[in-house]
């Protein structure tokens, strides 16, 4: 669905934010992007919808180069939930806020109405329908921005640090929503520092450092590479650390960290 071909990006001030990134994300995949602040994660995401255009290399969405189309067009397919909801909420009511993108994308009024109701219900925001989005709590605002995106039903959803400032109950709900998106065939990309949040999803994990992709594979394998994780300043999931410390002992009962996590009841069974 998205293909990065040897993409490099240099800022106006000369800083190289992306350095020869080649990456393909297929339809329906669930991908976690990790790395320290400044590694290039958000820059990568901005290239997906053409907010930034590569200094060299190409970014293709469904075969079309991002330079050949507009951000508005690309956003129809790729919904990006940025980290700070206060950077986008502005409407008189939550209802209007949800309708904003739908109208921009040219949905007819009856469909707008329908989608707005659906979204409000799904994210338990119905009682705020007529309220100003600005009076919602932090967690509710994050739910609202996500609801706005799902209302236009993009093929792919990108979440940039969705768990910041959320308590455990809100995080669980979010994990549930992501699961629902994956199972309905959507491509989901999550940028997160919260490794414990990503781990149960068992996504494909892409580790970034200094603008490069230094590792790309399935969660159980990637998370075992302690040195790589440390060099990228990424934490290792506690379950994996436990597993790694115990597996080489005689009679360790686990075959892999995934199995260990389920067997020990830290993850729900499949």
């Amino acid at each position, binding site marked *: 669905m998205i293909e990065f071909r040897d993409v490099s990006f240099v800022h106006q001030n000369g800083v190289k934010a992306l350095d020869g990134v080649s990456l393909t994300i297929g339809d329906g995949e669930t991908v976690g992007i990790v790395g*320290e602040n400044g590694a290039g994660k958000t820059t990568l995401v901005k290239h997906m919808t053409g907010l930034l255009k590569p200094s060299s290399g190409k970014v293709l969405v469904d075969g079309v180069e991002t330079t050949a189309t507009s951000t508005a067009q690309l956003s129809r397919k790729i919904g990006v939930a940025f980290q700070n909801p206060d950077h986008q909420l502005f409407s008189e009511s939550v209802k209007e806020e949800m309708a904003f993108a739908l109208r921009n994308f040219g949905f007819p009024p009856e469909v707008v109405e329908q989608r707005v109701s659906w979204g409000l219900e799904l994210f338990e925001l119905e009682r705020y329908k007529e309220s100003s989005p600005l009076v919602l709590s932090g967690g509710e605002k994050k739910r609202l921005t996500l609801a706005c995106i799902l209302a236009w039903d993009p093929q792919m959803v990108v979440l940039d640090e969705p768990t910041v*400032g959320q*308590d455990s109950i809100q995080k669980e709900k979010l994990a549930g929503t992501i699961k629902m998106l994956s199972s309905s065939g959507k491509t989901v990309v999550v940028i997160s520092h919260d490794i414990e949040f990503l781990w149960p999803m068992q996504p494909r994990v892409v580790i970034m450092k200094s603008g490069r992709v230094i590792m790309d594979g399935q969660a159980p394998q990637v998370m075992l590479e302690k040195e790589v994780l440390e060099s990228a300043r990424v934490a290792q999931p506690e379950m994996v650390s436990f597993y790694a410390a115990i597996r080489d002992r005689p009679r360790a009962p686990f075959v892999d960290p995934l199995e260990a996590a389920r067997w020990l009841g830290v993850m729900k069974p499949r």
Partner: protein
Amino acid sequence: MGNIVEVEGLSFRYPESPRRAVDGFNLEVKEGEVVVLAGPSGCGKSTLLRAVNGLIPHMYSGEYSGEVRVGGKAVKDTSMRDLAQTVGFLFQNPENQIFMFTVERDVAFGLENLGVPRPEMRASVDDAMALLGITPLAQRAPHELSDGQKQRVALAGVLAMKPKLIILDEPTSLLDPKTAAELVELVGKLRSQLGTTFLVVEHRLDLLVRVADKIVVMSEGKKVLEGTPGEVLFGDQAEGYGVLIPAVTKLQKRLARMGIVGTERLLTPSELAEATWRGST
């Protein structure tokens, strides 16, 4: 070693709100302790912090009852100027508490406000910057810095005033895990080197439990749990209040129920692996 903070029966209701943000809250924090305040969003943690440093009632008015004493002084009757010398507050967003265009001038901000003479101020500023490792950044502009660096600048500004108690409001929320771990280490270092007391509001407990003496859980304005990290996290109630139990702790609980390890203290993954192996052979 007395109590730095004493909260007795504190209740507070904001003017436009129908219900109390804090309801009959009691808390004692001893000098040199690191106390973590946790709870679901909207439980009143922010309000409580502001009642301790004096923003409530001096900046925010509302229906206030009960007593809060900091360093022996009643917060209600002490000016912000005096309170600021005892209580420092590191707000959640480092950007919105840095005023000056140059780092070292911002670190000096509080001291300038108090009219501290220049030589003394210079020494305090230099000490604070050295303690936080930001001396090389002294002449930089804040907008050029990373979030972690900005936070250190803000913290240096607080430390320069040499408070006995420092309040941290969700200090790790914007940081990546390694930087967050560095901050927690810093808290531990300041506690042991300077004897500073810390009151920290945090969702990400996995890091803080290493240095915390006590965890207090709030819900709907009331205190619902209090105890050592072990007591709170191994107990059954914390999870229901939106407290994130670290994965390794859940594991330890489960293994403890199986009789393989004990629960005297919270173990790290490698410690737990060691204990598990021993316990099962």
